């Protein structure tokens, strides 16, 4: 009897651990949908069978530690896209510029395009600007400038906003900056990966405890894994690649 209970307990613990290690990454459809198309990505994957993505961002596009780069969302995105788009060779490069504002990032945009020659640029920004209390007009102009640079070179773009960080919510006023990003993305007809709302949703539904404290990287790695999957879905949908996609075997 004791053994049965012990076995049942063990099974329960194992399943709990297994569940904890592979969160469902559930994201409501409306948060990933966008009316704008990634035409260059579509052409590149269908005709050239390759896809080069550059991620330009600040500190929240990377994780610290030896495993950091491999578990951060750009690497996860590459892994997921490689699996879901087996007919194309997918490469994701990450350029992290910690503590740079959107304006700093926009200035470095042309050089980055020349160096990496991406088909798609995922531009993550906003957090540094909100923390530094950058003028909203200047923030908007920086976003405009960066997106114009991308669009002039014919590179597709996805704009990514800030992380949802419940503990620092009263200290960093993200709202006006997130609103600005949404409006600018709409004006340039660029999809917005709404990381803020997505992570907020995960916190509300209890998928992740974002209030947690602790030095270990497990939570951070899981969140980044889910973010990578979310972006992959957004890219496949907005580039209209659903037809050639290898459905995840789940």
């Amino acid at each position, binding site marked *: 009897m004791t053994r049965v209970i012990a076995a049942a307990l063990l099974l329960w613990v194992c399943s709990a651990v297994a569940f904890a290690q592979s969160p469902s990454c559930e994201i409501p459809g409306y948060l990933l949908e966008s009316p704008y198309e990634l035409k260059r990505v579509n052409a590149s994957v269908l005709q050239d069978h390759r896809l080069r993505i550059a991620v330009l961002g600040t*500190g929240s596009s990377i994780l610290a530690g030896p495993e950091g780069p491999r578990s951060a969302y750009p690497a996860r995105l590459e892994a997921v896209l490689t699996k879901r788009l087996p007919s194309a060779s997918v490469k994701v490069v990450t350029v992290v510029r910690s503590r740079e504002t959107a304006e700093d990032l926009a200035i470095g945009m042309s050089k980055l395009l020349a160096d990496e020659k991406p088909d798609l640029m995922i531009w993550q920004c906003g957090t*540094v600007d909100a923390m530094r*209390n*950058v003028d909203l007009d200047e923030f908007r102009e920086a976003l405009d400038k960066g997106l114009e640079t991308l669009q002039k070179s014919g590179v597709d773009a996805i704009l990514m906003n800030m992380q949802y960080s419940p*503990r620092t919510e009263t200290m960093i006023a993200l709202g006006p900056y997130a609103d600005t990003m949404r409006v600018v993305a709409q*004006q340039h007809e660029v999809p917005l990966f709404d990381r803020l709302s997505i992570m907020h949703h995960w916190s509300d539904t209890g998928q992740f405890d974002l209030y947690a404290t602790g030095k*270990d990287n497990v939570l*951070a790695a899981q969140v980044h894994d889910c973010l990578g999957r979310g972006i992959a879905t957004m890219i496949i949908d907005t580039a209209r690649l659903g037809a050639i996609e290898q459905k995840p075997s789940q």
Partner: protein
Amino acid sequence: MSHREQSLAQELGDGETPRQIAPTIRPATTTTRDLRLDLFRGIALWLIFLDHIPSNIVAWITIRNYGFSDATDIFVFVSGYTAAFVYGKEMRERGFIVSGAHILRRAWQIYVAHVFLFAIYLAEIVYVATRFENPLYAEEMNILDFLKQPDVTIIQALLLKFKPANMDVLPLYIILLLLFPPILWLLQARPTIALGASVLLYALTWRFNWNLPSYPSGHWFFNPFAWQLLFVFGAWCALGGAQRLSSVLRSRLTLAIAMAYLAFAFFISFTWYVPYAGQFVPSWLEEIIYPIDKVNLDVLRFAHFLALAVVVMRFIPRDWPPLKSRLLWAPIACGQHSLEIFCLGIFLSFAAHFAMTEISGAFWMQIVASALGIFIMTAAAGLLTWYKRAEARNPGSRPKKTPDADLAGGEV
């Protein structure tokens, strides 16, 4: 004192008898306080509290989600109105110097209150800095950088240049009050010119991007050169402007336009939360309306506030019976002690957020924290009312010569 006498004495200002006030000749203004102002300022204080608790489900009821303007607009307008009402009367009776000095003293009180709130903010952020470690949020922790150079930061805070999140409203008031004595003088001497000057400053601010600098970068979140329009407009209304506008306000056409505009704003705000609805907004319209600039008090915001005021004033008359009822006592009492209740509200929003991070951020907690906060604000307002009344009754106390900014409406 009978209930009627008591309410009359309250209307006229604490500690003053009706006889002292009645004989003064005042062509364009009324002597009795409009309780609707206290009511709406009290409600605005509650809404500001709810909006300042991050990720608060209860904040969905606040007006910012249903149009272009929010509680801040109501608050600034009512504060301009009551400041002109209280200090305008004093300026007519006791002259420019005395009333000007009182206005500056009020600005000083608000400055002290702001510094007090900053101290609480520092305590909170230092606590988070020492307790909170999560590799996911390494970047967000850079917000603590300013702790590395407290010498600069604290001085910048005292200069009103470093303003943490949600602490932008009081600095706006300080500036508005510092500039108020000459504006008030002009409003009484040449009201049209004063209002015209305010509109001109607003227009020039938009044209030339005037604003005050912030630390470490950027500008004031509530641009005083733009937001002064709402404050001066409130003051202008208090000094007879409302009566001059009364024929316009009473017309059915105005009401119809106001309601149509509110409906339009409601639809646009609907598209912010329901993404599918966004496709019904043509892009040329988006080009025109966005961005709705809060920093510089967008014209759309100002118009939304006006429309809201027109509709509300139409359906809630000055002598609306519930204003004297127990039901509305709570928001009116809060509105009458606005500086104290505003500061308490900011503190309580910090405390509510703290409870949400330390205990639970669940929905029940958001509802409990919101309700408890409003209860504490009301209880504090009740206590302040009682305290003031007890002081006034004390036979040993000196008779009050200065206007009671709080009970008479006050500013902030």
